[in-house]
């Protein structure tokens, strides 16, 4: 039987809810369950209302559910804020000091188990007991955290966990939230989207990263720094984003596969650098983790509204490609591909992610991660290399062999002014034409390498849901729910949003009776881009721009407002009673 339990831990920043969530997630994965975790938080270090959500069961899961089966309330606010999302089988776990009038409330006397600093592990043991995890599975998770470094803390933790577990066995009434034994075997990795990007880049041969901290991109650089020494990568926190991209360009020019990581506002400062990479034909990977704008917007929330900005950023004309991974494994795989493509095309290449993916985790088999052979920067001079070396030699495909400065007797000259083949500045109009066309010829390579959008479902469906980037999981889940009710629904997901090649998707759009786009912005930027590339008009759109990620129920609730889908059959009330949609 398929199982699907949604757990949500709510509290203030600083209460340790992320620790409980991560340890519980690890234990669930080791016990062979499928999980999906996500986080929502306010832009502050203490206080505010933060949540850590874990969906667990037979899965696989690619998004959270709006409705909650297990609510862990670390403060009373959590009870008030989430009471409308509870399912009929829901249990609410809260300390005796927190008042809850809700049926299913389990009032836990945490003070009886030990001092307050151990309440997190006590809660972990209790939740494990509710979910049906064994005490060894939980202990292992806690050990990875304290074990080797603090054996005395570990012993103390184990004692408290045992007390809490015993209490749960005696006191927790019957409930419907216990998982049967997990079925997945073999080692699995638990990665979030930003960790996957960092690891994908390192695996693909990244040697240099410059960044300026900005949520939700910061953790990519932090992850890189953790592993930089092992992997021989140099990282630097630049004085600002302008410096970051110019450093990456300098490093790439001198032979290090390079990347910058930022979010919309920081990327705005990089725009001139993007153009410099285009003009000097310097490979650079630009990772932009989106959050809602304009300006500072909602720093810790999610949105997909920087697509048009990134497509057009940088003055003048030069080719680019934009990847937009839809899940954790493609965060890894497409980062690796993008780094390699930057080198091959000697161009700025983009990877667009967002807070939702950045803070979501899902267990993966190591075999799902594919980096290919590490990128090798530049070319070695051939025996017939002309002197002086021409950095911008005119070639059929526009790509000139890229020698590296200082690594041969040849001199490498690169310029941001229009230049001749030797790199020195030129104001000659014929040279200008030749160079513009040379740079644009490289677009052919980017087109050849374009990742196909993925059609999930029947080619000639009655409803086709079109999406890109991080909305893949929730959109596919919504489609699966509709198919389970007997509707003919398919999804078309783009994990690359530029170049857009109509041969890869136009016939799919035309074959569907009805096409609806689903994107995390207010104006339908991707639908507009599809129209620009192919002429196909997507008239019906589902947009979300409240700062929160899509969920299947949100999409279905919006779909009900579109002609032909008004009365959607009710979804199984046991697993999903609430839409979470405020009208």
């Amino acid at each position, binding site marked *: 039987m398929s199982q699907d339990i949604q757990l949500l831990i709510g509290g203030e920043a600083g209460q340790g809810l992320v620790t409980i969530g991560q340890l519980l997630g690890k234990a669930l994965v080791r016990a062979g369950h499928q999980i999906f975790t996500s986080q929502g938080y306010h832009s502050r270090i203490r206080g505010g209302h933060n949540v850590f959500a874990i969906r667990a069961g037979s899965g696989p899961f690619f998004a959270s559910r709006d409705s909650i089966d297990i609510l862990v309330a670390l403060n009373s606010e959590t009870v008030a804020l989430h009471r409308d999302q509870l399912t009929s089988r829901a249990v609410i776990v809260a300390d005796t000091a927190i008042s809850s009038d809700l049926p299913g409330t389990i009032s836990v006397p945490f003070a009886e188990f030990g001092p307050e600093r151990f309440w997190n592990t006590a809660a972990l043991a209790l939740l494990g007991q509710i979910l049906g995890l064994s005490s060894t599975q939980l202990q292992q998770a806690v050990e990875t955290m304290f074990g080797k470094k603090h054996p005395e803390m570990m012993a103390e933790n184990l004692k408290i966990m045992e007390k809490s577990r015993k209490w749960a066995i005696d006191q927790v009434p019957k409930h419907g939230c216990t998982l049967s034994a997990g079925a997945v075997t073999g*080692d699995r*990795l638990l*990665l979030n989207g930003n*960790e996957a990007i960092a*690891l994908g880049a*390192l*695996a693909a*041969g990244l*040697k*240099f990263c*410059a960044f300026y901290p900005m949520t939700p991109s910061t953790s990519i650089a932090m992850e890189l720094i953790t592993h930089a*020494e*092992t*992997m*021989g*990568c*140099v990282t*630097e926190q*630049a*004085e*600002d984003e*302008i*410096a*970051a991209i*110019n*450093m990456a*360009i*300098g*490093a*790439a*020019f*001198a*032979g*290090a596969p*390079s990347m910058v990581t930022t979010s919309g506002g920081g990327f705005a400062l990089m725009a*001139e650098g993007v153009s*410099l990479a285009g003009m*000097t034909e310097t490979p650079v990977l630009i990772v932009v983790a989106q959050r809602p704008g304009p300006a500072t917007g909602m720093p810790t929330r999610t949105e997909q509204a920087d697509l048009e900005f990134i497509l057009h950023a940088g003055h003048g004309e030069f080719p680019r490609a934009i990847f937009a991974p839809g899940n954790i494994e493609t965060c890894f795989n497409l980062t690796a591909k993008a780094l390699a493509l930057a080198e091959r095309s000697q161009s700025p290449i983009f990877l667009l992610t967002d807070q939702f993916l950045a803070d979501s985790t899902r267990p993966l088999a*190591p075999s799902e*991660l594919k*980096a290919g052979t*590490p990128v090798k*920067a*530049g070319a070695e001079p051939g025996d017939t290399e002309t002197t002086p070396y021409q950095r911008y030699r005119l070639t059929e495909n526009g790509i000139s062999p890229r020698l*590296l*400065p*200082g*690594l*041969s007797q*040849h*001199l*490498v*000259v*690169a*310029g*941001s*002014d229009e230049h001749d083949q030797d*790199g*020195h*500045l030129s104001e000659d109009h014929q040279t200008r034409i030749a160079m513009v066309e040379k740079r644009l010829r490289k677009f052919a390579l980017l087109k050849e390498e374009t990742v196909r959008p993925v059609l999930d479902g029947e080619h000639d469906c009655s409803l086709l849901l079109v999406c890109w980037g991080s909305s893949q999981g929730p959109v596919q889940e919504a489609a699966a729910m509709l198919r389970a009710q007997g509707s003919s629904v398919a999804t078309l997901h783009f994990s690359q949003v530029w170049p857009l090649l109509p041969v890869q998707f136009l016939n799919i759009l035309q074959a569907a009776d009805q096409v609806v786009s689903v994107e995390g912005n207010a104006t339908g930027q991707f639908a507009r881009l599809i129209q620009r590339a192919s002429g196909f008009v997507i008239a019906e759109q589902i947009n979300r721009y409240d700062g929160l990620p899509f969920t299947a129920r949100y999409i279905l609730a919006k779909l009900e407002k579109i002609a032909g889908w008004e009365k959607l059959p009710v979804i199984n009330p046991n697993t999903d009673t609430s839409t979470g949609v405020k009208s």
Partner: protein
Amino acid sequence: MTSSQVTIEEYGKYETAWCPGCGNFGILNSLKQALVACGLAPHQVLLVSGIGQAAKTPHYLKANVFNGLHGRSLPVAIGAKLANPELTVIAESGDGCMYGEGGNHFLAALRRNLDITILTHDNQVYGLTKGQASPTSDQGFATKAQPHGVVATPFNPVAVAVTMGASLVARGYSGMPGHLTKLIAQAIQHRGTALVDILQPCVVFNKVNTYRWYKERCYELNADYDPRDRDQALRTALEFGGRIPLGVIYKTHKPLFEEQFAVLKKGPLARQEVPQDGLQQLLRHYT
């Protein structure tokens, strides 16, 4: 691998886009002489510049060149040095580029202290854009953009660099080529970030700070001047008016920024393989 047989001819001769009589010619010449004196062959050198008349200099001698954006020579130079620490990296640009548009990078570069050289052609004016005030323009300097004269206090790059404890700080003058060559050579050979602010007459857009004006004021520091004395260095750096001291004004020993990266001890990043089992090792953290 420096070769003592390098000659000035190897650095070539190019036509320039500078006005006759421009102070840039003297600087270009001294730069070439200094590179030869350091025994550096053109392929060992990377010149990184921004945009402006000064920033065109790298196009007028043979070397590796990255001519980037206005204000952004330093971050590119730093990135390149971090990718290949064996390169002799020189960031070269005008006063507007280095201290105005690129001011934040200037401060950050002095703090980091990589083994690079900064050469600023300081003509106290924006040359390429036809004569607006620059951060180093004298108070009262009138231009079409500042018709009533500059009100803002001039930026003193030498004093700022001393205050920040930059590891070598010097002031030169393009009208004293022998002295300037020695300063540039010293800056290149210095281990750490070395700044040479080079006074440069602009014959077209700066009719105040002319050859004559500088000649009347510039003097060489005494042989017994001790550049390790920071208090004295600051007083010397602030001396800019009736008299202008030239030479190495401040010098100190600081750890190199690049030494924190173990991987760079093995040479250029482009020559290093990605560790074979590296990813496997990393993934263990996530099981």
